[in-house]
Structure formats: structure tokens, C-alpha cells
């Protein structure tokens, strides 16, 4: 089994590991002035290297040997448990090999540095913080290095077993998803303090020793969860090996599902992601000296005021609000003009057609809102803008208004479509209504179309405009009125 798995893994991945490790080692060496012992310790405790390079490499190797063998192979081991154990031994052997290569690379990368086996650092090195923690537990860097290495080996063995266990008990399509999710928790947790505070154990706790030394109970938590997990894994592999967790397949029935497949496509999502990213980034580049996230969010959702016409911001508002509407209009035109006869036959009532259409579109619009929440958050984190306690509520408030606005516009377009049977007329009416913002403020200030523009909302900075509550009220009333009309009378007007 060991030999076979080695054969499956092949030399390529191990060579990549060796090269990557050497590169990391040398780059660490160039940057700092350390002794040989300190250097090897700093490489093996460098959690960026470990989490973003070594763990993925190891998981990658695990993935290639994880697949269950055929029944004939399993039968030769007489029981599943014995098969599981021997497979685990082979994975452990892989882990030993893996660690060996890594060790070799690390030791090689440090050759030529002076030998000094103590904790004293030349001032200002990046490792100071970490070493001060470690020196509290170990007398020498060398002993620390050995313990860390052994701990990592143990961690790799357990991770390997965990992957095997997941692969056996979950359906094939879910294995990689679960492991990826687990890895993502690991990968993002070093950047997110609140995740670190939670008592959960990730790959990094198994593999990186010093991640367990942060809190008082952290090591205990890791030990207990790991022990219980290992016991559960062994026990289930012995007693319940014939079970397989079957995940109930999602219900893929009904017109809404059918339409969702039409409209929530990769292409449409890509278009939306591109446009939202471009607009958010452009909004930042316009005023790169903004440091507070709140101000930037208000600018992002500023839209266009009333009583004047500024072409650029009007176009921006038109694009932000009109993008999902455009995609949906094209979608409605497509499904209604080329509707398959089979769909018509399977419908029980005409209402269903309109219901499916509106439901799908609302799902799509909500998706757009999610995008418009996520991308600004990512940008705020990436640019390190200063956040206050109002940032997230403000963002949600803006996105909520935007969603309501887009929904109102969409429902209005659908209602017009029901009357005229031409989606283009609905769309043109929306463009016209958006243009009404050039009317004097008194008349157009309360116009529901485009009311999500922050420029029209009362803010402490601007001291003018509609209050947020009133804006929400207007949009709610407008959208629900059209919605109710569509539900009661709309279907009579639609479709022959």
C-alpha cells in the first residue's frame, strides 16, 4: 500500500514542495540576520509559508491517494478497519516523507549561517514577538525546533486520517467541498481575530505548534477535540464503516428553479462582478485620500441628486441601478418569446408563469445586493480604511435602499410589460422616469425611482433631502402596490 501510494503521488509534487520550501527558506535568510538555529526555527514557524503553501501541498497529495479502492482490494484486508488502518499508515508514511523533504530543504537553506544556540535576536527582527513566546516554553531554539517538527508530523498524520475519514463517509462530490471549507477556515483565521477566539480546531492547530500557545486553554481545546475526533474516527471506521452519509439532493423542481438556471449563469454573474468591482474601485480612485470607510460608502451610493443633471453621476446611477434590470429584461424577453411548448403544457395555471418570473428576478436582485455588500467590504479590508461602529449598518442601509429601489423599478417594468407585451417599452419608461430627476427638487425629491441615491437622502453632512425612514416608506409602498397589483390582476394581462 505504501509503495503504491508513493507511486500515485509521484515525484513532481514532492519536487515542487522541495523547491518552494527552499525558496521560502532563502528569502527568509536574505531578509534577516539570524543564527543557524534561529533561522531553521523561524522557517518552520513561519505561518504564512505553512498555511498558504505547505498545507495546500499536503492536502493536494492527500487528495490524490484519498480515493477508496475497489471492493476486491478492500476484501483482501479481511475487515474494513484493517484496510483503513493500513491506508492510514501509508498516509503517515507519506507524511514522514513529506516532512523529511521539508526538513532537508530547511536545513539546506540555512547552511553557512553562524551557529549560536540561544534566543537573543539582533534588534528589530520580525520574529521577535514569536520568539519571546516560544522562549517561555523552551530553553534552546534547537529543542524547540525538534518539538515543533515532531508536532507537525503528528499533525500531518491526523490531518491525513481526517481527510480519509471524510472521503469514506461523505459522497464523492462533498468530500472536496468539506475539506476546502475546513481549509478556508484555517486560511482566513490568521487574519481574523474573532475566529481565533472561537474554540474550534483547524488544520493550523494540528500542524503549527505556536498557534496553540496563544491562549491559556487553547492547547487543552486542541488536545481534547483532536483526541475525541480520533476516537470517533477509529470507532466509526470499525463499527459503522458500511454507513455513508447521504446528503439529500436539493429540490430542483418548479418553474423558479428552471428560470434560475437561465438567469443565474456564470456569464451574468461575471458581468455583475466586473461592473460592481469597476465602479467600487473607480469610486475609490476618484478620492484616494479618503480614510474613513463611512464617507467612502456614502460616495459609492451617492447616485444622482435632483433638480440638476450631472452627466457622469447620472450615468453611474443608471449603470448601477440598470445593470440587473437590463439583464432581467433580456431574460424576460427571451423566456417569453421563445418559450418552449413543453413549459406551457406543464403549467397548471397562467399565474405560475408570472410568479416564477418575478420570484427568479427577485432572487437575482437580492444576489446583486449581496455582491454590492461583499465587494465594498473586501475593498475596505484590502485598503485598510478606518471603520467605525456605523460602517456596517450604513452599508446595509444603503444596500437595502438600493435593493428596494431596483425592485420597484423592476416591478414597474414588469407591470408595463403586462400591459404592452413589450419589455422594451418598460425599459424605456424606466429611463424616462430616471431622467425626471432634472425636475425641480420639490417635485422630484419624492420620486421613488432613483430614491436610493444617497444624494437625495437626508444626511448630517448635507442637511437636505428625504429622511431615510421616509425613503424606505416610499419605496416599500411603491413596490408593494405594484407587486399586489401584479399578483391580483397582472396575470390576466400577461400571456395569451
Amino acid at each position, binding site marked *: 500500500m505504501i509503495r503504491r501510494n508513493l507511486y500515485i503521488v509521484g515525484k513532481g509534487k514532492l519536487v515542487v514542495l522541495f523547491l518552494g520550501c527552499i525558496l521560502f527558506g532563502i528569502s527568509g535568510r536574505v531578509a534577516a540576520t539570524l543564527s543557524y538555529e534561529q533561522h531553521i526555527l523561524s522557517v518552520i514557524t513561519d505561518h504564512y509559508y505553512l498555511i498558504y503553501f505547505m498545507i495546500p501541498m499536503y492536502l493536494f497529495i492527500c487528495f490524490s491517494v484519498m480515493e477508496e479502492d475497489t471492493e476486491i482490494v478492500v476484501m483482501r484486508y479481511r475487515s474494513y478497519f484493517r484496510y483503513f488502518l493500513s491506508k492510514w499508515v501509508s498516509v503517515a508514511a507519506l507524511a514522514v516523507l513529506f516532512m523529511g523533504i521539508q526538513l532537508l530543504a530547511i536545513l539546506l537553506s540555512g547552511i553557512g549561517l553562524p551557529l549560536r544556540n540561544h534566543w537573543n535576536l539582533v534588534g528589530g527582527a520580525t520574529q521577535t514577538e514569536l520568539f519571546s513566546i516560544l522562549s517561555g516554553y523552551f530553553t534552546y531554539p534547537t529543542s524547540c525546533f525538534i518539538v515543533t517538527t515532531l508536532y507537525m508530523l503528528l499533525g500531518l498524520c491526523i490531518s491525513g486520517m481526517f481527510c480519509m475519514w471524510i472521503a469514506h463517509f461523505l459522497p464523492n462530490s462533498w468530500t472536496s467541498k468539506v475539506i476546502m471549507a475546513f481549509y478556508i477556515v484555517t486560511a482566513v483565521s490568521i487574519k481574523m481575530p474573532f475566529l481565533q477566539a472561537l474554540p474550534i480546531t483547524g488544520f493550523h492547530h494540528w500542524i503549527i505548534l505556536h498557534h496553540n500557545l496563544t491562549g491559556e486553554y487553547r492547547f487543552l481545546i486542541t488536545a481534547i477535540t483532536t483526541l475525541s475526533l480520533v476516537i470517533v474516527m477509529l470507532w466509526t471506521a470499525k463499527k459503522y464503516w458500511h454507513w455513508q452519509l447521504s446528503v439529500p439532493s436539493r429540490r430542483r423542481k418548479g418553474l423558479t428553479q428552471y428560470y434560475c438556471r437561465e438567469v443565474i449563469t456564470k456569464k451574468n454573474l461575471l458581468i455583475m462582478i466586473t461592473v460592481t468591482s469597476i465602479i467600487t474601485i473607480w469610486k475609490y480612485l476618484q478620492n484616494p485620500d479618503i480614510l474613513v470607510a463611512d464617507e467612502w460608502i456614502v460616495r459609492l451610493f451617492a447616485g444622482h441628486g435632483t433638480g440638476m443633471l450631472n*452627466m457622469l453621476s447620472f450615468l453611474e446611477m443608471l449603470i448601477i441601478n440598470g445593470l440587473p434590470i437590463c439583464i432581467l429584461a433580456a431574460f424576460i424577453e427571451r423566456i417569453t418569446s421563445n418559450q418552449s411548448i413543453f413549459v406551457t403544457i406543464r403549467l397548471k395555471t397562467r399565474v405560475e408563469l408570472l410568479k416564477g418570473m418575478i420570484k427568479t428576478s427577485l432572487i437575482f436582485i437580492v444576489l446583486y445586493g449581496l455582491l454590492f455588500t461583499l465587494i465594498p467590504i473586501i475593498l475596505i479590508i484590502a485598503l485598510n480604511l478606518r471603520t467605525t461602529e456605523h460602517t456596517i449598518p450604513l452599508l446595509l442601509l444603503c444596500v437595502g435602499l438600493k435593493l428596494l429601489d431596483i425592485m420597484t423599478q423592476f416591478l414597474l417594468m414588469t407591470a408595463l410589460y403586462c400591459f404592452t407585451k413589450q419589455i422594451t417599452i418598460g425599459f424605456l419608461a424606466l429611463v424616462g422616469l430616471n431622467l425626471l430627476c432634472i425636475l425641480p427638487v420639490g417635485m422630484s425629491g419624492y420620486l421613488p425611482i432613483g430614491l436610493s441615491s444617497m444624494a437625495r437622502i437626508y444626511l448630517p453632512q448635507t442637511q437636505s433631502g428625504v429622511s431615510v425612514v421616509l425613503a424606505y416608506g416610499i419605496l416599500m409602498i411603491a413596490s408593494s402596490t405594484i407587486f399586489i397589483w401584479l399578483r391580483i390582476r397582472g396575470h390576466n394581462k400577461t400571456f395569451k
Partner: protein
Amino acid sequence: MFRLMKNEWKKLKSPVLGAIAILSLVACILSSTLYLDYSLYYDIEAWEIGTELIGFLFPLFVVIPICWNMYYERKNNFLLYTMPRVSKRKYLTAKWLTSAISSFFILFIPYFLSAIFALYVKSPIDPYATADVSVTPFRHIFLELFTQTPLLYAFLLSCWKSLIGIFVMSLGFVLSLYVDNIFVILTGPFIYEILENFILSILGLEKYRLVTAFEPTSLATESIAIGSFLMGLLVISIVIVAVWLYFGKIKRIPVFKV
């Protein structure tokens, strides 16, 4: 050819004439009312203010009354029956020529008519601020033409705008040859104009927008160059060819479905 074009004209007659009538009415009313809120020096400036909005929406006006035709002819298989009678190339050429002439007049008549309205029908502007002219010199593109012979200026500019209208209509026409979604056909050129306008604006290349070529007064006079007039047309021509290559040559969608 002439007979074919006459045939095509029969199909397009009512929407095109309707569009011309409505647009002329709107343009004339706007040119002879909107200017009242501004302090102006010349009568012809009222025309510029009145037709500002039309400049933003013009892709809709030239595409919607015309490009529906091809879509429905493809959809109801009318094209199939033309095939034995006339060559494909000849039929499409006649159709495009008729469409081009129609789109030319859809823009030209309202623009020129509203210019005449602004110059001769509405009450003349009282240039009460002429004393200031020497202090802040009046700047305008083609200044001499604009001030001395406003009618000629309006005529030339209307012709130029209508020419751009033909290009925009051609984009819609090419779309209507291949696309099965009438919404995309009718609003495609408009969406193109919005996106082009927006992207070039955020890149700081306002002077190369199609809208700048259409409305040279939308920017400060200094930043207008000869490239401003041609660049937008060049880009839209490239887009038209790209659309044609993509659908016709790469995806190989037949115009005449047998």
C-alpha cells in the same frame, strides 16, 4: 434597387414618420421654452439647450423605429420568401440604405426644424449682458460660423449629427441580423452609448466619446480636437465590425434561416 428600397420604405413608413413628428414637436417646444431660465447672448444657444436631452437619448430614436423590422422578418420567416426573388446581398443593401436614410431624417428634421424655431419663431433674445462680452470673451466652437451665420451652423451640425445617427443605427441593424432578443436589439446601441460614455469619462478621455462628437459643445472648447469628431465614429465602427465578425464568422449564425 430603387423598387426594393421603396418596398422597404413602405414597411418603415409609419414608425419613422411618427418618430419624426413626435421628435420635432418635442424639440421645437423644448428649444422655445427651456432657454428662459438661462441668460444667453445668441438665439441659437436656445437650440443647444433645448436639444440637450435628445443628444443623450438619440440612439433610442434612431434604432427603435427602424431595427424592429429585421427582427420580425427573421422571426416570421418572411426572409425565406424573399430568397427566390432577390439576392441576399441586394436585399440587405436595400434594407440598410432605406434604414440609413430614414435614420438620417429622424435626426435631421427635428434638429433643423427646432433650430429654425429657435432662430425665427420664438421671441428674440435680448442680449442684455453684451457689455460683459468684452470682459469674459464668449467662447464657442466654430465661433465665427456660430455667431455670424447661425442657420448654416445649425444646418451643418444637424447633418453631422444625423450622420452619427446612421452609424448608431448600423450597430442596431447588425445586431438585428443575428440576435434573437428584440430587447437587446432595440436597447443595445443605447447601452453601448452609456457604457462607452461612462468608461471613457472615468478614464479621463471625455473628448473621444461618441457623445462629444455628437454634441461638441458638451465640453470646453479648448479640449475639442479634430480627433474628438472622428474617434467616437472609429470606435463604433470597430464595434460594428466586431459584432458582425463574432456572430457571422465565429458563431456562424445565418441571417437567412432555411
